[in-house]
């Protein structure tokens, strides 16, 4: 217990250069947000946020981001487990591929999704004519676009959690005769709950902010595919006050999510 106190007492002043540069960084990132807040139509905010178009967008965003997070949990947690616990050749390539959407420009993701699931796409042409399933221009298409872009955030977070977790518990369970599936279900998942929750929250926030892939793949129609970010984009052309109000909603939600994560994502223990 004495070590930290000693360290604190002896901590030298941080170099001025670093402090100035760090401060500039903070100002650079915060300034646009301050500008947004400064332009906000505070008086009309209440009435702007209950307009039909705004309510539709809010509701649609909540539903689609929630569904995308659900799909990501179902597919992403096993994926993270495989990447962390199973040795196989090409694992690094698979990991790179599944995390690619994190760095890919979302509009590229949207075009790629169209080529895959569009009416004339690789898989889409079979979904369309025989099955009558059309993903583009549908709410399901929005969920597909959001899942594609947001799932990697969950995979990366859960995999980091798995790597940080003590494997001896799993080994002990195996020694006691538990199958790998039972161990995964009864031990690994509960043990990983904080990492899974953090990953899901991050995934949900990313899905909520998704714009490029959604507008490219799913189009833009109020009540069906126009989520919050698309509504901001649509409102920018006509109703700027509404656009700013919607932007504020997105900023507040994102900030709350990041505060809720409390450093969990970027400081995995």
């Amino acid at each position, binding site marked *: 217990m004495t070590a930290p106190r000693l360290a604190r007492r002896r901590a030298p002043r941080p170099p001025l250069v670093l402090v100035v540069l760090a401060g500039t960084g903070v100002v650079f990132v915060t300034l646009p947000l301050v500008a947004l807040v400064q332009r906000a139509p505070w008086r009309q905010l209440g009435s702007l946020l209950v307009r039909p178009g705004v309510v539709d967008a809010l509701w649609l965003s909540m539903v689609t981001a929630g569904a995308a997070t659900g799909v990501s949990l179902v597919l992403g947690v096993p994926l993270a487990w495989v990447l962390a616990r199973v040795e196989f050749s090409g694992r690094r390539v698979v990991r790179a591929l599944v995390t690619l959407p994190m760095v890919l420009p979302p509009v590229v993701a949207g075009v790629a999704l*169209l080529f895959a699931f569009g*009416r004339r796409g690789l898989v889409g042409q079979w979904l369309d004519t025989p099955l009558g399933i059309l993903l583009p221009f549908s709410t399901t298409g929005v969920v597909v676009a959001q899942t594609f872009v947001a799932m990697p955030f969950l995979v990366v977070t859960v995999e980091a959690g798995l790597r940080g977790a003590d494997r001896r518990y799993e080994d002990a369970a195996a020694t006691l005769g538990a199958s790998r599936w039972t161990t995964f279900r009864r031990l690994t998942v509960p043990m990983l709950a904080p990492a899974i929750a953090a990953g899901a929250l991050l995934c949900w926030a990313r899905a909520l902010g998704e714009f490029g892939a959604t507008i490219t793949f799913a*189009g833009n*129609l109020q009540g069906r595919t126009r989520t919050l970010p698309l509504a901001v984009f*649509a409102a*920018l*052309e006509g109703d*700027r006050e509404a656009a700013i109000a919607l932007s504020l909603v997105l900023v507040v939600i994102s900030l709350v999510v990041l505060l809720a994560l409390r450093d969990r994502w970027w400081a995995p223990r």
Partner: protein
Amino acid sequence: MRRLAAVGLVAVLAGGCGTDAAGGTTVTITVFAAASLTDAFGELGQAFSAEHPGVRVRFNVGPSPVLATQVLEGAPGDVLASADPSATSRVAAAGATLDTPAVFARNSMEIAVPAGNPGRVAGLADFARSDLLVGACAEEVPCGRLARRLLADAAVAPAIDTEEADVRSLLTRIEAGELDAGLVYRSDVLAAAGRVEGIDVPGADQALATYEIVALDGSAAPGLARAFVALVGSGVGQRILADHGFLPR
């Protein structure tokens, strides 16, 4: 790496001026143009550079209301050419123009369908069919307003599947076959000839888009900005616009 960064910085600072390969000074003027003007203005830009050696024309293409907002927020530009007189008036009213905006072209609407017309679209009435995927521009842009007016005049309640921010993104979706039909400008059907087919709409000549152009107050080269505006209104400019399917002012 450092040299690369320095060159980049100089390029950014220099803005509109630079040196061409031959060592002569080049000037760049920036024209904010409505999405539907993309191809016609590309050709007009080349004609302008041919008339003014050393002058390069670059374009900022987008939905007219967005362009107006960009100008009003201080985006550096020399000329504004919009498909929406209300957008141009908004800029003029704020005192951000050098002159009074002038009408330079008009455009009529057509139904565009992918080559081969897979949805067997015959007219506006097909926009009510729920088995088809149909699109229109957003109501905020002129092509969206005109499309809705035509549909309302034909007493069609459309089952629209997507509202695109500008006419070119709508056209792209029709070209790709993702949509069975959409209402675009005649000039757009011409620009995508071979990939889309146009179907005439009754009453289209009663619902025309009006294009206005004006030199901007923030221009660093007002002489060149006005010269570009003059070219667009000249015989040469009008011929290029007519070749691209635009109607005379």
